[in-house]
């Protein structure tokens, strides 16, 4: 006698679908399609202009070439300032995100601590660094320091969330082991939690540094120092050949730092 579960010629890897499942799947597709159409209207999508104004775009692109590297000394100097802004913005954020990350982890502190800290971090993360940069320019004046502050606040929000997620994914058994020796709460965190999350934290910090090198190039546009300021001046004066040179330098440096940080991240994990 043949058992009923034996593979038949029409064997399928998926279990047979019920009518309700079929309906659910259809509904999902309808919702996705509706969302796409709705957003198309709102964002005034008009692909035809790309073809109609192809000539204009061509002329604009033409204006970019050949790039003008006459003032390359200035660009390199400002690019270095941008990097310096990214470095300090990230370092300050990492320092603040360590305690804040632990304070917003569910398994480390009671809800009446982690919930307020989380909401604060949400706020720091929700506002783009450009907005913070504009505010800090008003507060501390034009210049790179405003950029550092902007990156600091925004990155703290992002890193605290990533750090706390790493903390929430730890194993409890080593922590319990440390606790069983009679250690205090802070010692439990230092010896039971930190060694477990350390590689992940380093990796997240480096990833944010990459992102901050990119962000630091734009915070300058609102007056917070670095290459962004130069870029903004050039674009405003329609000097596209020099703009092209600056963009080339940005692409070069950002790519370089992405590669370096990728290598470092592979090393720590």
């Amino acid at each position, binding site marked *: 006698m043949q*058992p009923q579960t034996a593979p038949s010629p029409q064997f399928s890897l998926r279990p047979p679908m019920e009518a309700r499942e079929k309906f659910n799947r259809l509904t999902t597709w309808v919702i996705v399609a509706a969302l796409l159409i709705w957003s198309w209207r709102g964002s005034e999508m008009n692909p035809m202009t790309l073809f109609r104004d192809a000539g204009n775009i061509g002329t604009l692109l033409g204006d970019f070439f050949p790039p003008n590297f006459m003032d390359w000394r200035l660009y390199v100097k400002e690019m270095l300032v941008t990097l310096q802004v990214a470095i300090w913005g990230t370092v300050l954020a990492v320092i603040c995100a360590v305690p804040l990350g632990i304070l917003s982890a569910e398994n480390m502190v009671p809800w009446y601590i982690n919930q307020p800290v989380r909401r604060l971090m949400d706020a720091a993360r929700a506002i783009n660094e450009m907005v913070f940069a504009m505010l800090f320019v008003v507060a501390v004046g034009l210049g790179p320091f405003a950029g550092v502050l902007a990156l600091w606040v925004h990155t703290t929000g992002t890193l605290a969330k990533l750090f706390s997620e790493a903390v929430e994914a730890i194993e409890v*058994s*080593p922590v*319990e*082991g*440390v*606790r*069983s*020796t*009679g*250690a*205090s709460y*802070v*010692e439990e965190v*230092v*010896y*039971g939690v930190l*060694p*477990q999350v*350390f*590689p992940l934290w380093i990796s997240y910090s480096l990833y944010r540094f990459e992102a901050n090198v990119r962000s630091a190039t734009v915070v300058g546009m609102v007056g917070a120092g670095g290459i962004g300021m130069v870029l903004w001046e050039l674009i405003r004066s329609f000097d596209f050949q020099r703009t092209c040179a600056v963009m080339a330098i940005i692409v070069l440096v950002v790519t370089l730092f992405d590669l370096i940080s990728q290598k470092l991240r592979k090393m720590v994990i």
Partner: protein
Amino acid sequence: MIHVTNLNKSFSGVKALSDINLHIERGEMVALIGSSGSGKSTLMRHICGLTAGDRESGQIMVNGCLIQEQGRINRDIRELRTHIGVIFQQFNLVGRLSVARNVCLGALSRTPFLKGLFGNFAKEDLELTCKALERVGIADKAWQRTSTLSGGQQQRAAIARALVQRAEVMLADEPIASLDPESARVVMSTLQELNRTDGITVVVTLHQVDYAIQYCPRTVALKKGHIVYDGPTANLTRAMLKTLYGSESDDLFGRKEEAPTIVQGAAA
């Protein structure tokens, strides 16, 4: 040394421990046996103050100090835990730290706060760590990352950590359940040696009676949260276990009397 009186514990309405009374004298080596779910690990966690009993419980005293009373854990529990070494089934070591550092963590509670934070342990404690590693026979692994050790070696590192704690009581919760027979033998012999030469009181939970017979003079048997036997291990016979545990008793012996028969039709 360990006095548990009228301990009760229920998890969401289900009784895990009911009216446990247990008294263990200094220098004893006691086996706590029972099949899985019988409450032996729960009892252990209560004795070291990691879990609180129900409100209608008595006291748990270890070494003359109150651990918990009527479901409330003593506020100075962190200090009291220093004197109780706990050995866990999953070793509970910090995998990314070196073996030596894990063992030295046993000295944390008597290290000043800032020194402990920066891993600046006292010279005596470093010497004690070195000695403890030698005693359990893994001195050659001192600088290795703990996660690279075998299960048996990790368990011995955990015992060394309890030694550095200068624990007078060792609670070993299923210390050999995830080890191969040879490593299990080494771990049990290490515990026995500490019990005999240092007079450390050892309580070890096991789910195989064989090891209890070999290493522990006294056995406490648990079944569904009740103590069903407490006395010399020598008096425990297979027939007696059969009456205590019924069909479960096969589980308690490592070696089965007969090979399991192949389930009919499974190969079809």
